């Protein structure tokens, strides 16, 4: 990691994650997350070049179900959760001009 860890640009990564940070938050998080990234550099002590990665501790493969129609969530209950709705559709700000 030493070869890649030049420090994270918290403001830039926050934008990727669709989060606007205040200046105070940016400064605070930058310090705290630099500390965390420094801590995780200890993984460099290990040679894992011949180790397989584990994505799931107890993996199961090819989980399929029968192609049958089941019951869905109640539409009215789902629509009632929309922050803004029109005629059973979610209402969002305009995406494309004109």
């Amino acid at each position, binding site marked *: 990691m030493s070869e890649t860890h030049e420090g994270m640009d918290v403001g830039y990564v926050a934008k990727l994650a669709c*989060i606007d940070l205040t200046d105070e*938050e940016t400064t605070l998080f930058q310090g705290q*997350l630099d500390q965390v990234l420094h801590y995780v550099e200890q*993984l460099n002590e*290990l040679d894992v070049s011949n180790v397989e990665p584990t994505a*799931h501790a107890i993996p199961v493969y090819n989980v399929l179900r029968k192609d049958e129609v089941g019951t869905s969530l109640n539409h009215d209950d789902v629509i009632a959760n929309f922050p803004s709705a029109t005629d059973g559709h979610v209402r969002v700000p305009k995406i494309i001009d004109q």
Partner: protein
Amino acid sequence: MADLNKCTISELSEKLASGDCTSVDIVNDVLASIDANDGNVGAYLTIDREDALAQAKAADEKRVAGSSLPMLGIPVAIKDLLNVKGQPCTCSSKILEGYVAPYDATVISKLREAGAILLGRVNMDEFAMGSSTENAALGKTSNPWNLDHVPGGSSGGSAACVAADEAIASLGSDTGGSIRQPAAFCGCVGVKPTYGRVSRYGLTAFASSLDQIGPITKTVKDSAILLETLCGHDAMDSSSIEIEVPAFGKELSTDTSLAGMKLGLPKEFFVEGMDPEVEKSVRDAVEHCKSLGAEIVDVSLPNAKYAIAVYYIIATAEASANLARFDGIRYGMRVDGKDPADLYAKTRSAGFGQEVKRRIILGTYVLSSGYYDAYYKKAQKVRTLIRNDFTEAFKKCDAILAPVTPTPAYKKGEKTADPLKMYLDDILTTPTNLAGNCALSLPCGFASNGMPIGLQIIGDDFQEETILKVGHAYEQSTEWHKRHPSL
């Protein structure tokens, strides 16, 4: 008033069966205890009293009609990240204010089928991210043993309500210790089942490859009864495993012998900086197990020390993806913007608390182009080493004994300014989540300041029966679980 709220599931099941009390009596006692104490403890976020009493009445009618379901008439508190149809599910986050769950999580359906009463929703760290419930956006929870101390987290409300006798039992979830650590801090019993044992359908996901739902109770036997209700394969969770569910509750006998049992002691789990009172209580518990006939063997988990580094890469990576769904479009809070991207950012910035933002940012970074191999992939490889350590250890023993936490519950505010310091406290619980196997936490003493201390019993994959057996034998031959906090 018979103080039915102070009873265990197994005691109440006997009283209900013999007609000594009704479920309505139990719920009334529990509600009275909430009224008396929850102003101080702050475990609950929402309680629907009428609904709880209606469920109790229905349970009593079922019993009269001949039903003897395992959880019939027993009230259970629910961590606020499990969907219960028609109820809020806030995850203690402002971003989910106003959301009403349109369906039941599988564990909730199973509780209903077993006759349990869904009592109310309890507080937690926002989206289960935290170890003290101080990251909760919607409530403040205290440790019933000393209100100045934290209850632990993230299932802080689940542990506090059981310790305060404001519930008979509760459900929590454990991603890096979030059942075991608050159970230890509050003097309760908690189980993190093997990954895949319990369906995660309807659990608001934090880190999908680590999350498991489990019970928090007053005794090991109660955990066994409740766990049995929760387990089982579910087509709605493709990571749930098709494997037989033993009758956990029935298997526990009055026999407290551990003869023939090999229990492993990992030297790496008595970490530097561990509170001497915690170490002494756990070592005394090990001696006690020896006196019950167990053979104690040394085992080694050399890579467990990397668990925090691995955990905070993998858990935040998964969280950054899982929490992308909270964008202000389909449910919860929305802060309007000039276009969708502006709306997403404004909503997420206003809706998420600081710890959640911190973890999403870290997770986004470790998954981003150029850093993926260095952080995420490397962490997954070390995860393999941690799992291999357990596989080797379980060749030498039936279960592993260890502390749950390096210290007992600390004072509120002590660690909130330093996230890394708080993360490091998860060093003894995160290895099990990464490896996938099961573990139990139960009381094994008290510090001189009166705070409870927990013993962790770690089992191999799907060996819940073994850890419950060891825990039950220890508990039945000690007195720690009989103490109650004075509120």
